[in-house]
């Protein structure tokens, strides 16, 4: 299957390492992908503002993917949720689809809501498969406790996302554990990281994060692991700002799944951007064998 990588807006400035590490592991695992230069913002932040603008944004991306007959592969939960949700809405509502296509026709595009949309974790788990990935590992981790953080938008609403069981998911845990790390149980595992209100009400945002970070620390986590741009920004950049503001906290760094897997696959640390994480993540090397 041909994939077009759908990149997420904030990464250019704030999370280049997610882009470079994703590209690196996909290449290592032999997945071909293209970059569609014309992709636009999925529309996630516009959901609060204007429904049609939100739908049109994702519809244009779906139309571009359809034009090139590719599936869409994204490494961000919010982009994944948005595109899938919009595609669902367009399938259910012919009038909405008609409206959107009238606008898109002005650019010579048409949206047919039948594009395959995959999250990176989905592609790794279903398209490539656990065994294939395991066979390619050159390093494993020993005694590494990972608090796996799925992220709200990956799982819910489950009737649309259909990614995994929303109450007791296992896909991300399995992917973490093939590297040899332990995906530990923790109470607030499926709670929100707080990113959606960072900039809107920073106290609320930090409170939500603090709850999870305290819980993960109590559960014995060495690292958090995320597969979402916004969650990673929250646990990495915002946690650093939190520590500066609120103090009294031992940093609990968050590593991107692509960085964790990348290390396992023996990829170069510069490509994985471990040093680019705001909170020092280099400690993960201590667990590598």
């Amino acid at each position: 299957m041909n994939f077009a990588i759908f990149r997420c807006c904030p990464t250019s400035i704030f999370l280049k390492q997610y882009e470079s590490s994703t590209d690196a592991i996909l290449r290592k695992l032999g997945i071909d992908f293209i970059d569609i230069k014309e992709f636009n913002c999925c529309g996630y932040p516009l959901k609060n503002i204007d429904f049609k603008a939100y739908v049109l944004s994702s519809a244009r991306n779906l139309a571009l993917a359809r034009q090139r007959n590719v599936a869409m592969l994204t490494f961000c939960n919010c982009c994944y949720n948005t595109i899938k949700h919009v595609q669902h809405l367009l399938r259910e509502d012919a009038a909405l689809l008609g409206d959107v296509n009238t606008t898109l026709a002005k650019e010579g595009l048409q949206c047919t809501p039948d594009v395959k949309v995959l999250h990176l974790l989905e592609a790794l788990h279903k398209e490539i498969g656990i065994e294939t990935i395991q066979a390619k590992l050159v390093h494993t981790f020993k005694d590494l406790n990972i608090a796996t953080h799925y992220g709200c938008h990956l799982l819910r609403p489950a009737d649309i996302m259909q990614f995994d069981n929303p109450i007791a998911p296992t896909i991300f845990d399995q992917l973490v554990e093939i590297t040899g790390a332990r995906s530990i149980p923790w109470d607030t595992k499926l709670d929100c990281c707080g990113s959606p209100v960072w900039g809107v009400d920073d106290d609320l945002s930090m409170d939500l994060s603090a709850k999870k970070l305290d819980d993960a620390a109590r559960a014995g986590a060495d690292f958090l692991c995320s597969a979402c741009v916004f969650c990673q920004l929250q646990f990495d950049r915002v946690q650093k700002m939190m520590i500066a503001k609120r103090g009294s906290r031992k940093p609990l760094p968050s590593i991107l799944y692509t960085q964790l897997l990348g290390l396992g696959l023996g990829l170069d640390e510069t490509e994985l951007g471990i040093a680019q994480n705001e909170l020092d993540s280099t400690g993960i090397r201590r667990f590598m064998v």
Partner: protein
Amino acid sequence: MFFTVSLYVALVVFAVGLVYKVSTWFRYSLSAAAADIPAKRMLAAVKGIVRTVFSAKILTLLKVLVLEVLLQSRTLRESLLRWWMHMLIYGGFMLLLLMHALEKIVSVSLFSAYYATLNPFMFLRDFFGLMVLAGLALALYRRYFMKLPRLKTAVMDQYAIIILAVIMLSGFLLEGVKITSYSRYQEMVEAYADAGDEEELKALESLWVKEYGVVSPELKGPFADEVLAKGRELNESCISCHSRPQWAFLGYGVAKTFTPLAVGLDKAGLPALLWTIHFIACFIGLAYLPFSKMFHILTTPLSLLANAVMNRETSDPLNIATRQIMELDACMHCGSCTLRCSVGVVFEEIPNTNILPSEKVGALKALVSGKPLDERSLKLLQEGLLLCTNCLRCTGVCPAGINLQELWLDAREALLQKGMPEFLLLSPLSLYRGLMRGRLDEDRYAGPARLVADTIGSNFKEIDAQNQTFDPTALDKGLVKHLGGSALGSTFKYCFTCQTCTSACPVVHNYERPLEALGLVPHQIIHSAALGLSDLVYNAKMLWLCVGCYQCQQQCPQGVRVADVLYELKNRAFKKVNAMKPLV
């Protein structure tokens, strides 16, 4: 005489305009905080330039000068069509400026045997002119026939195409008419010909009619061979300055087309008229240059060079402020940024032109010039600046190297500090501000988001939920109907107020006294909406603090899509708020 006077007038107007424009770079600023006395800014600029030029950075500057300024590598990366268009216009025009307009200074010193009507100069002049016309044709094609989505063409773009077209076309027409001009031929013969008697003059004229395109009122072909031979003999002295006019291929084409009317047009003084149009058009272009799109000839290279060596961390803030005003003049409205903008398509639903980066720059120009903008224009600009995901693409593609990202950051803050509530802050579009919190003034950081959260209620009626009795006839039936018909909100009616959603909400659980902090909790919002209590709903902070984690929706036993209903209510509030301040 008229020529010289107009030239000097044009030069003076150009010089005054140039000084004025450059002075604005030191006098204007994006924010009051960045402003300082112009003299200080000028001194800082000189210091900065001197320090950079006399350092290793001079190599960077040279590299940028060659690759990005002269060879336009940034444009080439984005579009081959646009690169050709610009190279043809800019290359052709610069060569014509140097070799033709300034021939008496440049060409004469470079080439000892230079004469305008001699090859290769005569051929090249037409060739360069053709280059410019070809570039203009591509420009017209791009702006009017390619139907690029959301590419805006402004008066400044039309002016640029028109002034160049007038200069080129009047030049070719002039050349063609001069080729045929009998009066011009006579002037030249009187000044330069060695010929003596009438027969010899007739022979020379016959040759020139036959082979040089002159249209004579008396002499017409066919000519006898002996006459032409005699003419050729006399022409020996002329050919040291005159190549055959066919080499001026476009001008010659014009000459052939005009031939039937040439005598009459010549008598009517067409050559002199065309000459006047030609040089007046050039002088208008020159005089108006600092105020037109053509100013980018000077500012765009400056922007490319400055941005190659400046950065936020180490450059003098005064110089950054100056550079930013200069950057606004460096924009030549090519629209590359708009074509690549991640939220450009949103313009189709929210028709605020300030969403488009190229139009934001124009609006900022008006803002910094101190022109009094009405509140609606300011509001629209603020909204356009916030409706941006900071993906960095506009900044990456700008062929003028403008640091758009920093312009947006500084302009955004300048506008938000004016105290106009900005609804878009109640969304993840605020994330960038949040992540840049360390770079912003701490005491000005939280204000804007808090302001809009506090004042949004002021757009609706104030409700005292505990003590007020509701008038059933005053309920908002429109809200209920709208929710019922919406894709996101229609399931609200299945709610039987079991409060599962509220129990599952992490925001509710964050507060000791949720009702105090949030106004209403989720199940109350659903219930209030079902009753048509729109003012109560929109006043609730819960609506804006919902993180969209979907726990409520996931756990609702009735299949009410709770989070989606809240989104629909947020969208409806936005429409209402903006209906009060209507958009374009």
